[in-house]
């Protein structure tokens, strides 16, 4: 329909992965523009002057920032047959609650796992597992967080799954031992075409982690 969709992104970003998956799920063609976060492009600075962060979704010239907001925008603009968010207001609220939980409670501890030292790192690992357990309890015996259909919370979390191996090897623990149901969920999700296309190999991320530490200046 003449829609021009551009995504400013960075391949290992679990936030960018969300938007890639959301676009793939809706069969929206987009122009992927890899960004160098250590030498930010003028287009990134112009399109996200407030946070200067990826991912930025640009739809017909208009930028949308923040991945969860992008997923919801994509769902509203391209509703299609399988909406990401349920139509029932209470169910919608629950999905958004968990999306917010992932951003505010899961991301922080993952940074500590690979970015902190000693006690702080250990605390990050413990916190991370605890948060995953909370999510696992919410998942219960459902196929996806959204029930039978792959939806908003699944999209919000699955990018982290591609980083699990990197965290595990780095800190010598097993998410599967702690949260087997969550791993089973991840395995189901990565069978979807949209996810296969959007998630990098876990091995590639595991190799990338030491480079990231070096780039940020962590010994």
């Amino acid at each position, binding site marked *: 329909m003449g829609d021009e969709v551009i995504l400013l992104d960075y391949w290992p970003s679990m936030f960018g992965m969300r938007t890639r998956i959301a676009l793939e799920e809706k069969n929206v063609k987009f122009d992927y523009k890899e960004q160098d976060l250590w030498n930010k492009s003028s287009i990134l600075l112009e399109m996200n002057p407030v946070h200067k962060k990826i991912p930025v979704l640009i739809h017909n010239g*208009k930028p*949308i920032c923040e991945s969860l*907001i992008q997923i*919801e925008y994509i769902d509203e603009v391209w509703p299609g047959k399988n909406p990401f968010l349920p139509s029932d*207001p209470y169910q919608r609220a629950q999905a958004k*609650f968990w999306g917010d939980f992932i951003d505010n409670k899961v991301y922080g501890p993952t940074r500590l796992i690979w970015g902190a030292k000693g006690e702080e790192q250990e605390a990050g690992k413990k916190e991370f597992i605890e948060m995953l357990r909370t999510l696992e309890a919410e998942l219960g015996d459902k196929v996806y967080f959204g029930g039978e259909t792959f939806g908003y919370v699944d999209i919000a979390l699955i990018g982290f799954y591609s980083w699990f191996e990197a965290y595990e090897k780095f800190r010598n623990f097993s998410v599967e031992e702690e949260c087997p149901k969550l791993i089973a969920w991840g395995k189901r999700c990565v069978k979807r075409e949209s996810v296969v296309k959007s998630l990098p190999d876990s091995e590639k991320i595991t190799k990338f982690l030491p480079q990231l530490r070096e780039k940020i200046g962590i010994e």
Partner: protein
Amino acid sequence: MAESRSEEVKLLGMWVSPFSRRIEIALTLKGVPYEFSEQDITNKSSLLLQLNPVHKMIPVLVHNGKPISESLVILEYIDDTWPNNPILPQDPYDRAMARFWAKFVDQQIYVAAMKMVGKIGEERDAAVEATRDLLKLLEKELVGKDFLGGTSLGFVDIVATLVAFWLMRTDEIIGVKIVPVEMFPEIHRWVKNLLQNDVVKNCIPPEDEHLKYIKARMDSLKIKSV
């Protein structure tokens, strides 16, 4: 939508919390009657722990027995459930922008402003500067508009009452004008517009009691830091 009289709407909040006051604004704007249950955050009730076991925080909206937490999530729920007097715009792009600025208030401005609390000297000045840098973006958003939502009170205005009536009231107490009118004329114009809105006026904490509360809180923080 069901008639409001058949609905049971309860809000667990605190009179002094900007996060719970914003829910009251939305409910009042929609004409939804609700029961308010004041919570003691230093001694959490079993009801609160039961209704928000994940974060154990206010506000919690309980609608016909079902709890919803996180104020931005609650605001959207209210807008979805009672569509009269919409608070979010209809256009998907405008909705995305409203969500963006609401998050900006909660995750940037609020976080930066909290760093001023209990600080003195250079440390405080740096925190004030950082907060002002963020407020400048809000100032720019207000140019040519009566409200952040455009011509009428909307989602971002309701969220940003945190700036208008909490951050700006704190001004007088910490001894530095964080939001001076010379630097932020648009924000000051907007606060006046907010105060002309009866719903907002009736849903914010009474100024005298509010200032007394903030003073007492600041004093207790100072004592702790000595």
